[in-house]
């Protein structure tokens, strides 16, 4: 059975690891991919991340091949087709792992333990094992052979984006880390940097973090604001509009595309800009609602963070893995049966501004979720930079998936780990907000405020604006978006 690595560390080290996160300077990447030149890179798994990272690495002049389980090769499964049709060498673990200088484990979290157990004995002395998520090391406590170097390179975008941005000549923001217990030759960082360059990540910004900070902040973000809040918010807002007799097609469309539209404003100018898109009375309304939501939901955010930090979350989830994913699959099916999910978006025109004006409650939910997640993470010792990336920064990316195919698409795109956490959050949050929702009417979701008077009290408006701008997520956000804007000009 697994042994939570984080819990074996003394508090002093736990805090030190949680606080690791630094935005790296462009001039730290002048050596390019040199550290990996001529090395054999073997990728395990050929899903979206595996394939697209491999395409980028090969186009950067690196030697990439894929290893799959014998069954996937014999049965010519999709992963085999992905790799072979793109002209990559594909072989079994036995054929390719022993020759590999660096093994890239790009399989889903759930498979990490068996996969690593299978490949580790085959790996040559002094080779490197790379992860894109630290769950296996941190939560499952996987012990890696002492001669092996262990690093993490985690592009903070879906695989398709990783490729698309590279082809444009850019990249996606990437998090790198070295597992300090496994850096016998001291070249883990050099390998991780070269890998980030090979995928184009250095052009979009690289965060130097730790396995622990990555896992604890990633889990927190994805289950609360990123996926959990959007799922709960979608269901509550939809049911409210139907309850109040609004057209189901309109309600469905307002929510499906609303998250994407309002969080687009978030991406450009943080919570402040998202709220600034509202009229003054609507802004004050959204602010008040979000303050109320934050009071109600704070204990839930604390509980999620506590369970993540002390390992309760991962052990609960791993128990479900061991139980054939009964909970995960049941919750997935139940989500598919919700009224929001089953109502297609209407074909009416909704203007960009209307999504804000008629979605005041949605704006309030995003604001409350982003701020709570950020506050809870930083209170737990996670540095502000990490907390920003795992909350505000990723919210628009997840919102895009809902715009594509609603909650189904979101839950299909994110990892099983995120999906599991999302359902946990949703089940706790729905009853928690039941009373709050009783007081909600279509003025804040569906129809917008009556527009005959846009007057507001000056003092109150000043207070609200100051509160928005003074929140710590806005300060770090402005700094990091500044770094990004220097490099990224794409809209």
């Amino acid at each position, binding site marked *: 059975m697994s042994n939570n690595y984080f819990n074996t560390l003394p508090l002093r080290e736990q805090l030190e690891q949680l606080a690791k996160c630094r935005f790296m300077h462009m001039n730290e990447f002048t050596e390019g991919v040199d550290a990996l030149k001529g090395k054999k890179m073997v990728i395990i798994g050929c899903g979206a991340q595996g394939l697209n990272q491999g395409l980028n690495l090969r186009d950067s*002049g690196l030697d990439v091949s894929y290893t799959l389980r014998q069954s996937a090769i014999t049965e010519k499964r999709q992963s085999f087709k992905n790799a072979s049709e793109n002209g*990559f060498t594909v072989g079994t673990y036995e054929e390719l792992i022993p020759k590999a200088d660096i093994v890239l484990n790009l399989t889903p979290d759930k498979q990490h333990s068996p996969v690593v157990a299978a490949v580790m004995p085959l790996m040559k002395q002094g080779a490197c094992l790379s992860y894109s998520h630290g769950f296996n090391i941190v939560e499952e406590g996987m012990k890696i052979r002492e001669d092996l170097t262990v690093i993490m390179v985690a592009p903070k975008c879906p695989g398709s984006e990783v490729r698309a941005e590279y*082809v444009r000549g850019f990249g996606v923001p990437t998090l790198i880390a070295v597992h300090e217990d496994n850096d016998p030759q001291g070249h883990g960082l050099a390998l991780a940097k070269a890998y980030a360059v090979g995928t184009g990540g250095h052009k979009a910004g690289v965060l130097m973090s730790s396995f622990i900070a990555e896992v604890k902040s990633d889990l927190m973000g994805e289950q609360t604001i990123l996926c959990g809040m959007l799922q709960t918010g979608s269901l509550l807002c939809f049911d409210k509009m139907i309850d109040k007799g609004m057209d189901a097609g309109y309600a469905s469309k307002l929510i499906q595309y609303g998250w994407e539209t309002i969080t687009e404003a978030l991406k450009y100018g943080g919570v402040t800009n998202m709220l600034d898109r509202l009229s003054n009375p609507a802004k004050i309304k959204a602010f008040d609602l979000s303050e109320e939501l934050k009071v109600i939901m704070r204990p839930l955010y604390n509980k999620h963070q506590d369970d993540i930090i002390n390992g309760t979350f991962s052990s609960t989830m791993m128990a479900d893995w061991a139980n054939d994913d009964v909970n995960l699959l049941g919750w997935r099916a139940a989500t598919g049966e919700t009224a929001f999910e089953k109502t297609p978006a209407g074909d009416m025109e909704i203007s960009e501004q209307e999504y804000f004006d008629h979605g005041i409650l949605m704006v309030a939910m995003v604001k409350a979720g982003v701020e709570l997640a950020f506050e809870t993470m930083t209170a737990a010792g996670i540095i502000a930079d990490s907390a920003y990336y795992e909350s505000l920064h990723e919210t628009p990316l997840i919102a895009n998936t809902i715009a594509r195919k609603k909650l189904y698409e979101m839950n299909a795109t994110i990892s099983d780990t995120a999906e599991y956490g999302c359902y946990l959050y949703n089940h706790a949050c729905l009853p928690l907000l039941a009373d709050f929702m009783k007081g909600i009417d279509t003025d804040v979701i569906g129809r917008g405020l009556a527009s005959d008077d846009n007057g507001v009290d000056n003092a109150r408006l000043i207070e609200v604006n100051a509160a928005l701008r003074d929140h710590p997520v806005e300060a770090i956000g402005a700094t990091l978006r500044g770094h990004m804007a220097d490099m*990224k000009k*794409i809209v």
Partner: protein
Amino acid sequence: MLQLHDLSVEFDEGFQLKHINWQIQQHQHWLITGANGAGKSALAAVLAGYGEILAGSTSSLPTRIGWVSFEAQAQLIQAELKKDDADILDVISLGTPVREIIFTEEIDPVIAGDLIQKFELDYLLERAFRKLSTGESRKVMLIRALSCHADLLILDEPFDGLDQASHTMLQNHLAHVVTHTQVVMVLNRFDEIPDFISHVAYMEDGQLRHQVKREDTQAFNELYQLLHLKTTHLTVPDADADHKRPTLNPLEPLVKLSNICIKHTDMVLIENLNWCIQANQHWQLSGPNGSGKTALLSLITGDHPQCYTNDIFVFGFQRGNGESIWQIKQHIGYVSTALQWEYRVGTSLANVIISGFYDSIGLYSKSTDQQKHIAQKWLALLGMEGRGDQPFNKLSYGDQRLLLIARAMVKHPPLLILDEPCLGLDDINRQLVLALIEKVCAANETSVIYVNHHAKDRIAGIDHYLALEKSADNS
């Protein structure tokens, strides 16, 4: 309504106007424009009744015309010189004084007197007309035309040879005249176009190619660019001297593809193809839809995943030996419809051009002043001067294409790949694009691979051809 119906006209020099269909409504003021030798002045002369009609018809040509043109001026001067020759007396002819030339019976003396003052010609009235300078005699022509109560004023390059003060004076005077007199003007410079012009006729090879309403801003701008490309002596802006790429071995081919096979799942797209492209060869690649033209090109650019499973030599690299695609792309300029689809970025026109130095879609590197300067030159070349800060995604389709061609050429690549560059473009834009490509071919430092369907879009300078066929099991 003045009308030319399928009119073909021949002039003395053998020049012909062909199949002109043109209607001029009352209250419209037309500009005739086009490159040199396109037939602008000839079309204007037809309105004045010149030329021998070969076919077609005219109706409602005006009876009283005020005509200013180089030809009319030359005729008048010629006539004056003949008078001199005809003088059999051994007396030195003084020639006809300006006063006599101006104040003929059809001239309104009040208007003429006013204009003489405005043009400051008073002191020349007694001088012989044939002794005037070009600018002075042009002014006399203008005064005659503007003082005769014409039904139609034909002003063929009226500003030619005028000093700035006279130019301004004339502009102001015309603004007043057009309220009661119809004007047809010939200009080959768009920047002199007066505000009152409501329609533009564009001539090319003796044909009336385009008729555009002034208020149709987009068509008007395109016409402007076309004219600009046709009439300006185009010099392709220099490359960025600071932006170096490795020199290629002149003894090696640019591209050598050997025994190429491209397969998709169970289908073979291209099989056993060999293609060698030497420096300074220009190629045309053709073939039906689905014959693999674009796939073949993407093997060269490195965008096709099977470039690692084929025998490909490009720009000194045997593919699959540790080179990056950026080392390949630095030698290539590339334009295709797919690129335009992918180029959905909110960046500025100048940045789109500069992105060609970095082979990126969007700009992610800090550009140098030199590169910005080069981008401005390209914008000027395309007739988009001063528009560098406008967003690319708000441009018309044709303008976007032009800009992407500039992006492809900005670094003077050894190889320029134009994959159906005219696809989806209207006639004006197609001509613009072809004009630009011909400039590049002629410059002879870039090898061009040109892909197209239309035989009409042939490019001068292309001397090698590769035709793909649809493979048998790909139907």
